[in-house]
């Protein structure tokens, strides 16, 4: 026995409200991040990730309050991503009670931010989020590139190389999302997951494409991921986190039950 593979529900938050329709019959206010986080905590989530999708910079302060509220009531690790551009943003989230901060686009435009942040607050607090899309054609060796702006803008940066570089810059963890699979519910891009897992020595969280429990298990057994992140299969109450863990445990995966 040893370290458990982690299951991480992810919540999109806009102006302090959970969006993308969380539907739990038992919850009075499915838009309240605190209520939803408490529910996942009770079900046995190993961590919770909040993605702040608020468009305007001025309203980012709302997210700080959300983190403060959640961190006062939910005692598992919390990760916050979205709109992180400077070490100051990171500090604000950590002081509010976040344990880790995910840096995405800002790392692409300013990789030094990852180096600066990890030396100031510690690598264990810095997650680099990578949005990757397959760019190789039929019959070519597989290749993925980093995309920004929700997968619309290519950067020409090789995703596997980028993961290695971010580790060297001090990232403590990689949150790897397949933009080809995100929202499709047909499973992770396991080849991408495996390629990044094999390239780095830091934990990798697989994300993008989960539609059922088998997909979650495959992320670990075939993709080699240390943690699996999903949104919709948990939000709509199709599966509880507990069910997901029992499913994985039955397949020989070590989980915290």
């Amino acid at each position, binding site marked *: *026995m*040893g*370290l*458990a593979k*982690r299951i991480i529900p992810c919540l999109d938050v806009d102006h302090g409200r959970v969006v993308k329709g969380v539907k739990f019959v038992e919850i009075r206010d499915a838009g309240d991040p605190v209520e939803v986080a408490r529910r996942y*905590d009770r079900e*046995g989530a*190993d961590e919770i990730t909040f993605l702040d999708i608020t468009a305007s910079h001025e309203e980012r302060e709302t997210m700080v309050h959300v983190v403060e509220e959640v*961190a*006062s*009531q939910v*005692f*598992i*690790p919390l990760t916050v991503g979205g709109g992180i551009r400077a070490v100051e943003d990171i500090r604000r989230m*950590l*002081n*509010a*009670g976040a*344990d880790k901060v995910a840096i995405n686009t800002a790392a692409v435009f300013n990789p030094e931010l990852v180096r600066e942040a990890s030396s100031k607050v*510690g*690598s*264990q607090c810095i997650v680099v989020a990578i949005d990757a899309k397959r760019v190789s054609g039929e019959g070519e060796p597989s290749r993925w590139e980093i995309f920004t702006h929700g997968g619309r803008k290519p950067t020409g940066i090789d995703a596997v190389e980028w993961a290695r570089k971010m580790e060297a810059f001090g990232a*403590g*963890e990689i949150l790897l999302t397949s933009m080809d699979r995100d929202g499709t519910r047909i499973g992770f891009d396991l080849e991408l997951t495996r390629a990044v897992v094999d390239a780095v*020595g*830091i*934990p990798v969280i697989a994300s993008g494409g989960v539609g059922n429990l088998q997909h979650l298990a495959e992320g670990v057994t075939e993709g*080699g991921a*240390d*943690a699996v992140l999903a949104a919709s299969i948990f939000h709509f109450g199709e599966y509880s986190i507990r069910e997901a863990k029992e499913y994985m445990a039955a397949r020989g995966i070590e989980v*915290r039950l």
Partner: protein
Amino acid sequence: MSSVIVIDYGMGNLRSVAKALEHVTPEARVIVSADPGAIRAADRIVFPGQGAMGDAMRALRERGLDTLLGEVVRNRPFLGICLGLQALMEQSEEDGGTAGLGLLPGSVHRFPSDMKGGDGTRLKIPHMGWNQVHQCSPHPLWRGIPDQARFYFVHSYYVRADDPSVVAGTTRYGLEFVSACARDNLFAVQFHPEKSQQAGLTLLENFMRWDGQAP
């Protein structure tokens, strides 16, 4: 109900520790401070910490807390967390060799980079996530927590104790390391009880109700 002080010496974010203590004992006074007078006046002491050992020892010395900790560690319930366990030891390999507070017999070492898991894959450093803690002997702080319960860890260095009688818990990650120490009124853990959901909250609640007597 009693007061508890979370010692704030600039090493990591202590908000979660304070919030968790408030959560388990709403009637207690939870103070976050480095003030020597406040530390002496508190009924219970929590000594947390995250980051590098060299920085931690410097921060403690600058605030005159190194000698004060040696004093208060002897006479009231005291809980070390993470770096707050490691700093109690005599010596650490971190930062080219750093002397600790020397309040517990043992040393701190970096996990070897070539450790392999049961399935042959390379083990990652830091050791981050939920791992099991074997309770070596009964203790008031383990009350209500099953043996081998999982707690949340984040660390790259681990403790080796020179005296087996101070080992209260062990964990396996490539090798077996000391994840909890206990002696008299002192208890210290490598994991983060404030981030370990029910098992962690139970441990904190046990600490808040502990009279400081060893079992």
